[in-house]
């Protein structure tokens, strides 16, 4: 049916000279066969598939950004709780938004010294609390007590000997916290023997 309609189309539109070219050349025949493909439904199909992919992508983004996500931690600063070689953890983003972070929670936050770097620390004090900490745990017993200012939290790594945290850069604004770490997912069973 398509072929016939295109033939009639040729007869209607093309000048006699062009019609001669069509009948002579193989290329033009190929062109008409390509043109006769059901382009409308192909494009429609492609568009709907693209829309579906975009929808899935946006859904993943929204869940990851606002509800919960999975993150990979590495480094020595949280040592007993998180492996040196790295752990996959589940991050809860809702409770941070609701302000349900309490002392003792491990949180994921943006480093105040380099906003591109996410860090994981344990919250030790909320606004108004006084926190006592060892200034230099490896070498002396000197301790210091500070009061956490309004809207700030005091964060420290569990491994106080190898952690860069509030003891160096002071208490940090609550707004830097991006998520609360709730579960450790044992995907990486590394052979440590």
């Amino acid at each position, binding site marked *: 049916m398509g072929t016939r309609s295109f033939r009639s189309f040729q007869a209607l539109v093309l000048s006699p000279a062009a019609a001669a070219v069509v009948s002579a050349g193989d290329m033009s025949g190929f062109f008409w066969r390509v043109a006769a493909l059901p382009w409308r439904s192909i494009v429609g199909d492609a568009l709907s598939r693209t829309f579906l992919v975009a929808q899935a992508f*946006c859904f993943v983004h929204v869940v990851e950004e606002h509800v919960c996500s999975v993150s990979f931690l590495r480094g020595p600063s949280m040592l007993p709780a998180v492996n040196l070689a790295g752990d996959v953890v589940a991050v809860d983003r809702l409770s941070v938004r609701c*302000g349900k972070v309490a002392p003792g929670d491990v949180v994921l936050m943006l480093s105040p010294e380099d906003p591109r770097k996410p860090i994981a620390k344990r919250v030790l004090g909320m606004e108004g609390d006084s926190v006592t900490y060892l200034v230099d745990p490896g070498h002396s017993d000197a301790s210091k007590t500070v009061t956490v200012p309004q809207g700030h939290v005091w964060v420290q790594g569990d491994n106080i000997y190898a952690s860069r945290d509030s003891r160096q850069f002071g208490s940090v604004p609550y707004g830097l916290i991006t998520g609360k770490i709730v579960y450790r997912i044992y995907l990486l069973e590394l052979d440590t023997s």
Partner: protein
Amino acid sequence: MARAWATAWPYVKGGITGGVFGVTFADWCASITSVGGASMYPTFDAQQANWALVSKRCLKHFDVSRGDVVLFRSPKNHREVVVKRLIALPGDWIQIPEKEEIRQIPQGHCWLEGDNAGVSLDSRHYGPVPLGLLQGRVTHLVWPPNRISRVERKMPEGRIMPKGSF
């Protein structure tokens, strides 16, 4: 009941899809926010709320410049978002007007000030602010209609020594 649900379902689905697309767009590209209050007076109206177009493209790499009007999460209260002018970046030296002292902005921080110095609660009050609290850059005013315009970069004269300029 089942029939009512069947009728409503396409609308519910459309709403959810639209919401998801909208939130993603607002997180990645741009959103519209109400900016008001007296602290940015010559730039924004003090009496009525202004609506501004906020670009979120700067959030990924924190590429903001001195003089930009930016949206920040307040360091005093994480539920509050403030709009201020960013006037110094990490490593810059700034002279603080009231105290006659010159200080350097620490790494990863910036200095925010409102245009209306008299009433603005900003870095002069709470010191340098971590860049991680950045929420977006205000590019245009879109409402009320008589104020539709670009928001220009502006710097106070002679108080900032940008890093590497001396």
